């Protein structure tokens, strides 16, 4: 079985819509409502995600903090992160946190799938 995708976004409706789209495309999807939950998911899961789709502005733990903490763990260091943000400066944010790319909300289904496919590790 291929490695799952991890979707981190505090908006439940959006997160579920994302999970649906990605599952339809044949991916296994894990969800988290903020950075702290995402770290817990990483700890619990046996197989490492092939990609983290990461929102930036979230309560409890934001995207940037999650990114930093994830990179501090040897095993998680190389998981690619795709910044998925509503901010105008998503490109800059992505560069600062060493993400593999960024998507600006809102996106089309096609754009989303293309970006995920080209950035995930197998």
């Amino acid at each position, binding site marked *: 079985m291929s490695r799952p995708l991890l979707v981190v976004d505090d*908006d439940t*409706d*959006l997160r579920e*819509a*994302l999970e*649906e*789209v990605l599952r*339809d495309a044949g991916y296994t999807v894990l969800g988290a409502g903020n950075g702290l939950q995402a770290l817990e998911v990483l700890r619990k899961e046996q197989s490492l995600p092939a990609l983290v789709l990461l929102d930036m*502005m979230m309560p409890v733990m934001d995207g940037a903090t999650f990114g930093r903490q994830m990179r501090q763990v040897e095993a998680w260091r190389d998981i690619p992160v795709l910044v998925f943000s*509503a*901010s*105008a400066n998503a*490109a800059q944010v992505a560069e600062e946190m060493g993400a593999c790319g960024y998507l*600006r*909300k*809102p*996106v*089309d*289904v*096609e754009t*989303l799938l293309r970006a995920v496919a080209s950035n995930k590790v197998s």
Partner: protein
Amino acid sequence: MTPFRLLLVEDSANDAALVTAELVQAGYQPTTRRVESLESLRGALASDAWDLVLCDYRLPRFSALDVLAVLQEVGRDVPLIVLSSLLSEEQAVTLMKAGARDCFSKDRLARLGPAVARELEETRVRRERARAEVDREILARASEMLTASLEQEARLDQLVQLLVPKVADWSAFFVQDLERGGLRMVALAHPDPARRTLAMQLNQRYPLDPQAAGGPVNVLRTGLPELVPDVRQRPHAPVADAAAYLRGVEALGLRSVVNAPLPGREGALGVLSLGTLGERTLGPVDLALAQELARRAGLAMENARLFQEAREAVRLRDEFLTVAAHELRTPLTTLRLQLGTLLQRSESHHLEPEVVTRLERSVRQVRRLGTLVEGLLDVSQLSSGELSLMPERFDLEELVAEVLERYQAEARAAGCELRQSARQGLWGTWDRLRVDQAVAALISNALKFGPGRPVEVDVGRAGGFARIQVRDRGIGVPVDQVERIFERFGRAVSSHSYGGLGLGLYLTRRAAEAHGGRAWAEPGQAEGARFTLELPLEKETRD
């Protein structure tokens, strides 16, 4: 009896008495001081203001010519009349040439009264003119300063310097400081730098008493100006402790004070103070000047405040737009993904064609909402700086085709045929998103203003530029509006007839300019309007 201040340069007490008696007889009441040496003459000129100098022709060690020289040296405009026992015509001519106003023999003292009357009158007129000239000059320079784009306190500092020493010995600006319950001195001009520093320090440590019955605080409270010709004779001391006040005045050598309020929209904003030391006094003319200066300064401060408020309001608006755009994006993303998924699954779910049409319409509307949100955000970003570009290499004709594809449904609804010129490929490095937005704005604009007629889109080269021209056959653009429509919220038509935020063309032009290109419109009521967007090509693409 007319009082005046007479300086008598005379070594003979008898002659002095004679002159005084003659003046009294002519109806004058002179305050006289007699000096016998050039040193005491200098001292008298330095410490007091004189209306007339009467001078013996020859004194033991000097002559009237030396007296004239001293007058010129100290720069005082005081008329001098020479009295002598015996004077040759030649000597008289020399004296007059050196600046004496008149000279005559001591045995013809009857001439003195009329001569003094003439000189006092002429001096008065001359001094008034000179003063008016000084005032005009100060006001002109003050206006210049107040309109210069400087920090407010720097301007006020320059303003007080203007007045010293021409009009007063010191000058200060106080502005209202609600936190301290009264006034705060923000500028001070004073001849002695050490005292100036001390005064600024004292002012910082001890705020002016807000309950004071006189002085700047009282002027601020009442809004009425104040002229105190002699502070030593002030009927009510402005501070509670009268003795301490008098000691303070004495220590400062304070003589006259003028306080003028700075008028603001809602009461006084501050106070302009003038003061003299020693014997120099201030009068109604100085009060008038201070009031006029304060009025201009008040206006400048009020304008600066309004400007600041406007800027703050714009900042708040932009911040709001940024937050609003950010917040709108999440639900838009959800909607887009949901509708997109449904549309993708329409076949496997066996959705009816009518449902599919509705889904497609919804997708279009959500996309349009997205464009509006992006436009709003771009505008708020642009007002705080330049567009930042993310260049990538792509085929411009392909991008235009994509945009046209996106607008097909809207074109059908508007009854417009969207035509694109034949494609050959036109590669360059631009910001895809920005160019997409710009082209979309031109097409959306053409569909809006030229419904029912074809819209033609030409993509080609013009020198070192890629050129996109969008032509409609609609209402055209009035000649006087071809520039205005590219402004933010600019529109050539009434917002009652045509909707839209008035942002599309503004963003088109800004995007073009950020790339080093340009965007413009050509009018033409009969055959519709033509909009052109030019983007620079790379060197190798140009050749």
